[in-house]
């Protein structure tokens, strides 16, 4: 028996190969994606504010452009803070992963390739989100402090490119859970020949 399996045995892992019932990483992912996407979306709404003004008036919702930009800033800040934990928990749970062998994902990748790409994507996205937050901060507090339009078009464009990277990253993550059965209790039980209906 290798030292690695010796160490894993000491951890008292469940059938899902985790020391707890549900994985933490996918839950923090809700926060990273929700906060980032809403931040960029509100900056888009704020940039296009002159066009939408009449609609908000019709809906009787009082709106200030600076209020919309506030969402763009604070949500982005929140995304940057939480994503350190999203990536940290992701690497912890990746170390404990026990993928179903000899399976190819819908994208034709093996489990290890999918994990490597998802890991690289996670570090890349963390870097991009922190970079976007710094960029956003400079626009808000320095470069465009006294301008009605708080963000540059380039910032919005990069934000939309990051949406695309997030889609790829999210699909790889979905493959890890839903196709390779990583940390999915029922899949792991089926893999060792047990019936989840009797065990859960």
């Amino acid at each position, binding site marked *: 028996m290798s030292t690695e399996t010796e160490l894993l045995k000491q951890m008292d892992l469940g059938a899902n190969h985790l020391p707890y019932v549900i994985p933490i990483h996918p839950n923090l992912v809700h926060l990273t994606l929700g906060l980032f996407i809403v931040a960029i979306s509100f900056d888009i709404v704020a940039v296009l504010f002159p066009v939408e003004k009449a609609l908000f008036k019709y809906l009787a919702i009082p709106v200030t452009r600076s209020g919309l930009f506030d969402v763009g800033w604070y949500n982005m800040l929140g995304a940057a803070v939480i994503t350190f934990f999203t990536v940290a928990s992701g690497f912890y749970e990746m170390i404990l992963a026990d993928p179903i062998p000899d399976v190819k994902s819908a994208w034709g990748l093996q489990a290890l390739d999918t994990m490597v790409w998802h890991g690289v994507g996670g570090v890349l996205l963390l870097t991009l989100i922190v970079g976007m937050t710094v960029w956003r901060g400079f626009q808000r507090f320095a470069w465009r402090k006294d301008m009605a339009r708080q963000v540059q078009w380039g910032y919005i464009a990069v934000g939309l490119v990051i949406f695309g990277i997030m889609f790829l990253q999210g699909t790889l993550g979905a493959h890890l*859970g839903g196709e390779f059965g990583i940390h*999915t209790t029922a899949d792991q039980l089926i893999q060792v020949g047990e019936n989840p209906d009797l065990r859960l």
Partner: protein
Amino acid sequence: MLDSLLPPLNEHNLPYPDTIHPIVVHFVIAMVLFAFVCDIVGYFTRNPKLAEVSWWNLFFATIAIFIAVIFGQVEAGLAEPYSAAVSTLNLHTLIGWSLSGILAGITGWRYVIRSQNKPQLPMPYLVASVALVGLVIVQTYLGDLLVWVYGLHTVPVVEATRGGTL
């Protein structure tokens, strides 16, 4: 006969590549929790900007939850849960529909508070938002059980169900 008009289902038992409901719920979970964090930080720092950020996050969450319920209902209908998973799916469905009403109600309340221009949020509202956050966390946990413990819509579970071994 009618079956031939419906799109074919893949190895996740879905007519499209992956589940959509767990993606849409990002915008309910993250926005409700962040709105609450903004209210708490805003309460202590007395930063009126955070009250506005909180309101817009709730507004977004309210639109998102109805889309989440629609996809949730479609994907629950295609989940073919085995007996052990049924009660969790039922409770998740019940709380999901209820939350759509509760969240819309609290967002409406927030709209009224916002239009009154008061310096602080009323205590009953803060109590209600604590309850809302609690309900969202419970609901997220139940959804986690359906995906990560019962493995609904995962390839091995769908395969076992189709093969008659589950």
